[in-house]
């Protein structure tokens, strides 16, 4: 019981991070129908900017201030990364052959990984735990259930970011434009929406969310290298597909599910096969629900 509760806490924390990345995938997919393979690497870039900012500010004693600076700088720079990636690698291919943007995205992903590897080295980089301590929820048979301050902070930051994001998508003109372009880009353009600009904003928002996830990941695990984007990216994409690609609540739900599966599988089965478990469950869910959990079942017109 206590052990399960601990896995639940760990799984939710991890799932929040996956959910944040998954939103970027699902938004881009919804709006231009492409798998943005480089998104996982934007997450990695975000984590690296976080560690660089934290190192640069290591003289500052106030931890919250340092973290806030890392979050904001990382989100801002990653937004610029997302914007630039879209301009350079995807926009020229809009309306082109379906596989072309996918290959371009895979190329971009390889570029980003190797860019960080060659510029910052292939070594793992570690930071100490900046928010140590926590509260003990319960103790059973000598097993203490820990809810660390770090986990609380991650969940709170994620929820705040998600709340802001939900507000933007549902209540602002920009969000309305985004939803309109997602439904029908041509019609939206006829009604005076600048689709190119809306798509750019989609990349900016998605990348900023990935950056927040990157900094959270850095804080949670304390260790990053240039390759973290691949695994996290695939899992987040899996989360987006599981939740029903194109659906924003689905992305968060999928992320939470993936985080929980991973935590419980590592806790009760073998850690070595936790990724295999995630992928297998994805395949099984899609066998029975080919459009994911919350996906719309699109009627295909001939």
């Amino acid at each position: 019981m206590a052990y399960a509760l601990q896995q639940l806490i760990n799984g939710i924390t991890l799932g929040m991070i996956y959910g944040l990345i998954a939103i970027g995938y699902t938004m881009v997919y919804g709006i231009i129908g492409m798998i943005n393979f480089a998104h996982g690497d934007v997450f990695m870039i975000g984590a690296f900017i976080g560690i660089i900012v934290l190192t640069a500010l290591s003289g500052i004693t106030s931890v919250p201030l340092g973290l806030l600076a890392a979050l904001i700088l990382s989100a801002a720079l990653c937004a610029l990364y997302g914007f630039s990636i879209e301009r350079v690698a995807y926009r020229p291919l809009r309306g082109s052959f379906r596989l072309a943007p996918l290959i371009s995205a895979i190329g971009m992903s390889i570029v980003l990984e190797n860019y960080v590897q060659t510029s910052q080295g292939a070594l793992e980089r570690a930071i100490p735990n900046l928010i140590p301590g926590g509260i003990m929820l319960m103790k059973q048979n000598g097993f203490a259930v820990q809810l660390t301050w770090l986990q609380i902070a991650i969940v709170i930051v994620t929820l705040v970011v998600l709340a802001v994001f939900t507000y933007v998508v549902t209540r602002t003109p920009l969000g309305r434009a985004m939803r309109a372009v997602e439904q029908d880009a041509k019609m939206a353009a006829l009604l005076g929406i600048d689709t190119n600009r809306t798509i750019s904003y989609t990349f900016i928002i998605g990348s900023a969310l990935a950056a927040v996830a990157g900094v959270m990941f850095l804080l949670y695990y304390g260790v990053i290298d240039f390759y973290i984007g691949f695994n996290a990216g695939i899992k987040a994409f899996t989360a987006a597909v599981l939740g029903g690609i194109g659906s924003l609540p689905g992305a968060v739900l999928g992320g939470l599910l993936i985080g929980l599966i991973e935590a419980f599988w590592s806790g009760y089965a073998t850690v070595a096969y936790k990724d295999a478990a995630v992928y297998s469950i994805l395949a099984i869910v899609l066998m029975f629900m080919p459009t994911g959990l919350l996906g719309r079942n699109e009627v295909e017109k001939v």
Partner: protein
Amino acid sequence: MKNLGAILKDSAAVAGAALLLFGPFLGLRLGDNEAGSLTLSPRPGLLAAAVALTFAARLLMLLWYQHRPPRIIPVKLSAGTAQAGKYIAPALLIAAVAMPLLPGIENSYIDLGVLIMTYVMLGWGLNIVVGLAGLLDLGYVAFYAVGAYSFALLSENFGLGFWECLPISGLLAALWGMCLGFPVLRLRGDYLAIVTLAFGEIVRLVITNWVALTGGPNGITDIPHPSLFGLSFSMAGGPGTFAGFFHLTPDPKQRTTYLYYIILALALLTNWVTLRLRKQPLGRAWEALREDEIACRSLGINLRNTKLTAFAVGAMFAGFAGCFFATRQAFISPDSFTFIESATVLAIVVLGGAGSQLGVVLAACVMIGVPELLQSLQIYRMLIFGLALVVIMVVRPRGFIATRQPTVSLGKAKLIGAAMLSEGRG
């Protein structure tokens, strides 16, 4: 030039963005001090150079855009390319057959030829799935791994040789292709892509973690080399070896040449089977599936069998290639079967122009040959590879050879036009 001001302004903006983008990564460098904590050291020179380079590149690009002649795309161009293919293909074939026999050619070049040919074969195999049947497969490397491990395990545990294992590897890979095919029958497009990707990762994870069977990350060593009618290519010479039988001095080139002809034959087999199948009902069904799944189903084509055979046939050739890879390397480990391999093969297919056999050859030469020749730039190799993918796609989104006619058509052949592609029928 009246727009010079605007061009300079644009270039300056791009350079400013580059300053922000490159700032943390090129301008600063993480390091460790003696105490084990992280340090940062500035690299202003590198950052300035990168920003200046970006500025200059953007400036030149904009100037070129302004001055380049207007593009005239002749309607007949693509048909012309197809015509030229009739002459290029035999010429390339003759060159490929003659290459290892050229006097004085170095062993390393034949070896590079073997590598390129392996990717050509993989590309042709994947072309069946992606180019012909239109099913996006991001986990193709899984079948390559199945083929390689089938041979390695059969030879390790039962002492079987390359030639006995080659068909077994192909069959096992085809079986796995069917296993993957079943759950994804109902999926389309990108759902299919992610499940195939997941399948590739699962296979790699199992290989890595099932240490008792596969040796885990350490891989399997001492995989036997193929023999020629019982003659081995041992460097020792003497009776029973190729060199001894033909009274030659043992030379590593003999073995490389032999491997080269094996992979050439396997690749040509792949090509021949593909070309034949395309003219038969099965191949036509694949092409119909690629063009329109619903129309295909409405015409009574069995989608399940069509998809499964596409996966199985594509996987079989990957299995052959994997078996060959194992015997060539004499050592395999899970590191050889990562996602990047799938991505490379897919990139070769798409860069070649999905569906084009000749395009695959050209793309494999460019994507595999050029990085291998850039060995001196080892650490930048993958960076250049990724950049090349982006640039080639942006410049030629349809690939090197951008024609894709259905193999059989009624009456006048119709080219798939840009208008139809923009409707998402690519």
